[in-house]
C-alpha cells in the first residue's frame, strides 16, 4: 500500500455529518464576486474538537480520488473522512479552492431562514445581517434544515415562519465534545479491545477496519443514546441502531463469531418526506411569465411549477411545444412565427420525399418498404379505443401514419421502431396539428432516443440503472427480485420503452409526461417513477413470494390501475430520501446526475456487468455505512 498512513495521520480530521449537493453560493459578505454563483455542497461538519460548523465547499475542490483501486482505503473514504478531497498532491489550485470554503461555526449561528419556496437559505451570526446566502438547485433546502435542526435548538419567529432563531447554545455539541473514549463505546477492558483490534487487523484488515469504523460512524450518524449501561458491545450498538432505524424491519443483524463480532448494518434511508402535489400551471401564471413580446423569462421557475403541478389542459398546446424543444423559450412571438414557417416548409419537403416515391421506386427500395410496412401495421393498432382514433377510415390515423413515415425520412437510420406510435398518439391527440405534432414528436424522440437503439443497449443500461436505484432505495425488494431471477428488471421494459404510455389513461399520461419533460428534480427521474411504483407493490411481491412469472404478470396487470399523482409524489419523496442518505454512493449520484465525490464502493466495479448479477447481498451490507 503506497499510502501507509493510518486514519489517525490524516491532518484534517473532520467528519461530514451531513452533505447536500447542488448548492450555489449566492452571496457572502467579504467575498469577491468571482466566488459567487459557483456550485458546491453544503455540509454539516464536525471538527476534531467536536465543535460543529456549516461548511460550503465549491465543487472544483472535490476531486476524484486517484487511488480508487485501493479498495480498503476507498472504503474508509466512504465513512466521511476528509481524505477524499486529497488526490495525492496538494496543488496550488487546490489551495486556492480551499480558500473559497465558507465556514459558519454552529455555536455562533444566531438565525437562519428559508425563502423562495425552499430554494434559498440564508445564515446570520450577527443580528440584522444575512452574511451568507445559498441557492439550492433542487429546491430542497428543507432537507438541510431538517438535519441542521438535529444540531441546534431553534424556534420559529412569530412574524415569519420561515425564519429560525437559535435559542440556546446547543447541548448536544457539549455531549459530542467528549472524545470517543468518553462515549464509552467499548465497555470491555480497553487494552483487550485494542489488542483484539490489532490481532484481527492482521488477519482480516478489511473486516476489522470496517467493524471499528462502523461503530464510530454509527455513533456519529445515529446519535449516542443508550450508551450508558455496561453491556455487551454488540448488544449496545445493535440496540442503538435498532432504535434509530425502528421504522425498518430487519435492519440490523449481529453475527456472533468466536473471534470477533461483525455488526452488519444495512444502511437505511432517512424517512420519506410526504411532498404534496401542486396545482397545474394556470393560464394567468403562464401569461405572466412571458414578457410583452412573448419571451418566457423565468424558464427554471416555469419548469419548477410544471414539475410540481403539471400544466392546465387549456394551455398544454402552447406549453408542450416549449417542453419538447420545438419552441425555444427565449423567442418572441414574431421569431416563433418565423420558426413555425420554416419548420412547416421543412416538414412538407420531407413528407414529399416519400409521397413522391413511385411504385417502382418503392419496389426497389426494401429498406423503406420494411419501415413503411411496420408503420402501417402499428398505426392500425394504436389507441383505437380512443374516440380520436376509433372507427374505420378515421382520418386521424392517416395523419398518424403520415407523421411516422415523415419521421422515417427525417431519421432513416433509426427508422420506425415499435412503440413510436404510442409516443406520437397523445401528442397528435392534444395538438391536433400535423406539423406541430411532428416537431414535438422529434423533441420527445430526442429525449428517449436510446430506448430505440438497434442493440437495445440504451434499454439495458436503463434497466441496470433501475436495478441499482432499487437496490439503494428498496433493498428488500431488490433482493427478492434477484432471488426470483428477475434482477434484470425486464418486466419493466414496457414502462421504460414508451415512458409508461401503456400504464396510464390518456389524461394521466399527459400529466406524467409533462412533469418528466422538465428534467426535474434530477436526471432519470423516470427511473424513480419505476421505483415508486415497485415500492408500492413491494409488500405484495414479497409476502406472496411471487416468482419470475408472477412478478411479470403482477407488473403487467398494474396497467390502468395506477394513481399518477400519488406516484409522482412518492417518486419525489424517494428522490429526497436518496439524495439525503448519508451512504449515497457515486453510482447513484451518476444515475441522478449529481456531482460525484470520487467515493468508490466495492459494488461500483460491477457497473459494467449486466443487471442479472445483483448487487443486493448481505456481503456488501456494511461497505456503505
Amino acid at each position, binding site marked *: 500500500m503506497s499510502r501507509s498512513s493510518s486514519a489517525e495521520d490524516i491532518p484534517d480530521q473532520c467528519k461530514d455529518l451531513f452533505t447536500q449537493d447542488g448548492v450555489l453560493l449566492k452571496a457572502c459578505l467579504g467575498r469577491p464576486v468571482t466566488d459567487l454563483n459557483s456550485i458546491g455542497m453544503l455540509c454539516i461538519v464536525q471538527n476534531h474538537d467536536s465543535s460543529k460548523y456549516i461548511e460550503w465547499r465549491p465543487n472544483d475542490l472535490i476531486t476524484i480520488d486517484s487511488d480508487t483501486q485501493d479498495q480498503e482505503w476507498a472504503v474508509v473514504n466512504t465513512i466521511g473522512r476528509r481524505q477524499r478531497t486529497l488526490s495525492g498532491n496538494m496543488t496550488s489550485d487546490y489551495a486556492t479552492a480551499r480558500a473559497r470554503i465558507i465556514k459558519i461555526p454552529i455555536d455562533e449561528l444566531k438565525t437562519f431562514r428559508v425563502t423562495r419556496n425552499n430554494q434559498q437559505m440564508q445564515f446570520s451570526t450577527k443580528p440584522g445581517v444575512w452574511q451568507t446566502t445559498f441557492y439550492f438547485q433542487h429546491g430542497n433546502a428543507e432537507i438541510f434544515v431538517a438535519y441542521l435542526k438535529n444540531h441546534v435548538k431553534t424556534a420559529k419567529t412569530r412574524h415569519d415562519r420561515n425564519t429560525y432563531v437559535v435559542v440556546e447554545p446547543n447541548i448536544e455539541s457539549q455531549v459530542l465534545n467528549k472524545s470517543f473514549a468518553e462515549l464509552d463505546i467499548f465497555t470491555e477492558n480497553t487494552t483487550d479491545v485494542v489488542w483484539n483490534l490489532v490481532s484481527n487487523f492482521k488477519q482480516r484488515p478489511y473486516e476489522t477496519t470496517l467493524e471499528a469504523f462502523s461503530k464510530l460512524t454509527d455513533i456519529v450518524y445515529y446519535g449516542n443514546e443508550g450508551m450508558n449501561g455496561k453491556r455487551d458491545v454488540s448488544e449496545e450498538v445493535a440496540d442503538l441502531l435498532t432504535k434509530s432505524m425502528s421504522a425498518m424491519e430487519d435492519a440490523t443483524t449481529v453475527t456472533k463469531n468466536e473471534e470477533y463480532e461483525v455488526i452488519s448494518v444495512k444502511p437505511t434511508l432517512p424517512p420519506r418526506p410526504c411532498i404534496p402535489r401542486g396545482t397545474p400551471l394556470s393560464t394567468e401564471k403562464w401569461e405572466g411569465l412571458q414578457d410583452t413580446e412573448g419571451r418566457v423569462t423565468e424558464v427554471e421557475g416555469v419548469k419548477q411549477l410544471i414539475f410540481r403541478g403539471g400544466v392546465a389542459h387549456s394551455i398544454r398546446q402552447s406549453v408542450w411545444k416549449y417542453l419538447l424543444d420545438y419552441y425555444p423559450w427565449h423567442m418572441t412571438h414574431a421569431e416563433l412565427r418565423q420558426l413555425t414557417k420554416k419548420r412547416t416548409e421543412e416538414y412538407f419537403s420531407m413528407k414529399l420525399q416519400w409521397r413522391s416515391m413511385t411504385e417502382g421506386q418503392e419496389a426497389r427500395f426494401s429498406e423503406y418498404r420494411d419501415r413503411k410496412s411496420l408503420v402501417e401495421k402499428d398505426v392500425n*393498432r394504436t389507441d383505437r379505443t380512443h374516440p380520436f382514433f376509433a372507427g374505420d377510415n378515421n382520418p386521424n390515423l392517416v395523419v398518424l401514419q403520415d407523421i411516422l413515415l415523415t419521421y422515417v425520412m427525417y431519421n432513416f437510420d433509426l427508422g420506425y421502431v415499435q412503440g413510436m406510435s404510442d409516443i406520437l398518439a397523445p401528442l397528435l391527440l392534444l395538438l391536433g396539428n400535423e406539423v406541430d405534432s411532428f416537431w414535438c414528436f422529434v423533441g420527445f424522440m430526442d429525449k428517449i432516443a436510446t430506448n430505440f437503439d438497434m442493440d437495445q443497449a440504451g434499454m439495458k443500461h436503463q434497466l441496470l440503472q433501475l436495478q441499482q436505484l432499487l437496490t439503494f432505495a428498496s433493498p428488500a425488494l431488490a433482493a427478492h427480485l434477484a432471488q426470483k431471477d428477475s434482477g434484470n428488471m425486464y418486466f419493466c421494459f414496457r414502462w421504460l420503452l414508451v415512458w409508461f404510455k401503456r400504464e396510464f389513461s390518456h389524461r394521466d399520461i399527459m400529466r406524467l409526461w409533462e412533469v418528466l419533460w422538465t428534467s426535474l428534480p434530477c436526471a432519470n427521474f423516470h427511473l424513480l417513477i419505476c421505483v415508486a411504483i415497485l415500492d408500492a407493490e413491494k409488500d405484495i411481491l414479497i409476502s406472496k*413470494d411471487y416468482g419470475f412469472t408472477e412478478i*411479470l404478470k403482477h407488473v403487467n396487470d398494474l396497467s390502468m390501475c395506477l394513481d399518477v399523482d400519488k406516484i409522482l409524489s412518492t417518486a419525489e419523496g424517494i428522490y429526497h430520501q436518496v439524495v439525503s442518505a448519508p451512504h449515497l454512493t457515486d453510482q447513484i449520484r451518476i444515475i441522478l446526475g449529481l456531482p460525484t465525490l470520487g467515493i468508490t464502493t466495492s459494488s461500483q466495479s460491477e457497473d459494467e456487468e449486466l443487471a442479472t448479477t445483483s448487487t443486493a447481498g448481505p456481503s456488501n451490507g456494511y461497505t456503505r455505512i
Partner: protein
Amino acid sequence: MAKTYDYLFKLLLIGDSGVGKTSILFRFSEDAFNISFISTIGIDFKIRTIDLDGKKVKLQIWDTAGQERFRTITTAYYRGSMGIMLVYDVTNEKSFENIKNWIRNIEENASADVEKMILGNKCDLEAKRQVSKERGEQLAIEYQIKFIETSAKDSLNVESAFYTLARDIKAKMEKKQEASNPAGARSGAHQIRANEQQRKPTSWLSRCSLL
C-alpha cells in the same frame, strides 16, 4: 391442497410483427377477437387449462414483441419453454421468409428438444394471400415441423393447433419418463411443479383463479 392441473407446459408464440400472435393467443385464451389489437411491447403471457386424454394440462403461453430489435430482450424468455408456435401471415411474404430466421433463433436460444409448430395465420384473407398453403407445407416438411393454417378472426384451427402442440409435448415427456424410469412414475416436469406447490401453496393457485 387439491391440484388444479396435472401438467404445466410453457409455450411461446414467435414470429414477425403484426402476424397475429396476440390475436391467436386471445382467441385461444378468451375465445374472442378484436380487429384493433394493440401491438405487444415487451412480453406477456396468458393461461388456459385444457383437458388432454383425461389429464388437466395448464398451458402458460408467452406472447412476445415481434420486431427484430427487441429480440435480445424477448429471447431471455425462451428458456424453459417446451413448445414454440412459429407464426407467419399468409398475406405477408416477408413474414413467411423470416420463419427460417426464427427457427435459427430458436436453435440458438431455446432447448434443443423443444416442440415446434408452424402456423400460417390470417387464412381468412384469401384475396390478399401471398403465401400458398403448399409453400407452408413444403417448409414444414423441410424442417420436419407440423404445420397448420389458422384464422384467429374466424376461429379456425387455433384450438386444434394448441391441442396438437400440447399433445406432442405430453407424449414426448411421457416417453422420456418411461425410458428413464420404467416403473412408471409421472413426468419430471409435473413433479417439480407439484413440489413447488406444496412449498408455497398460495402463489400459483391464487394467481390461477384470477386468470
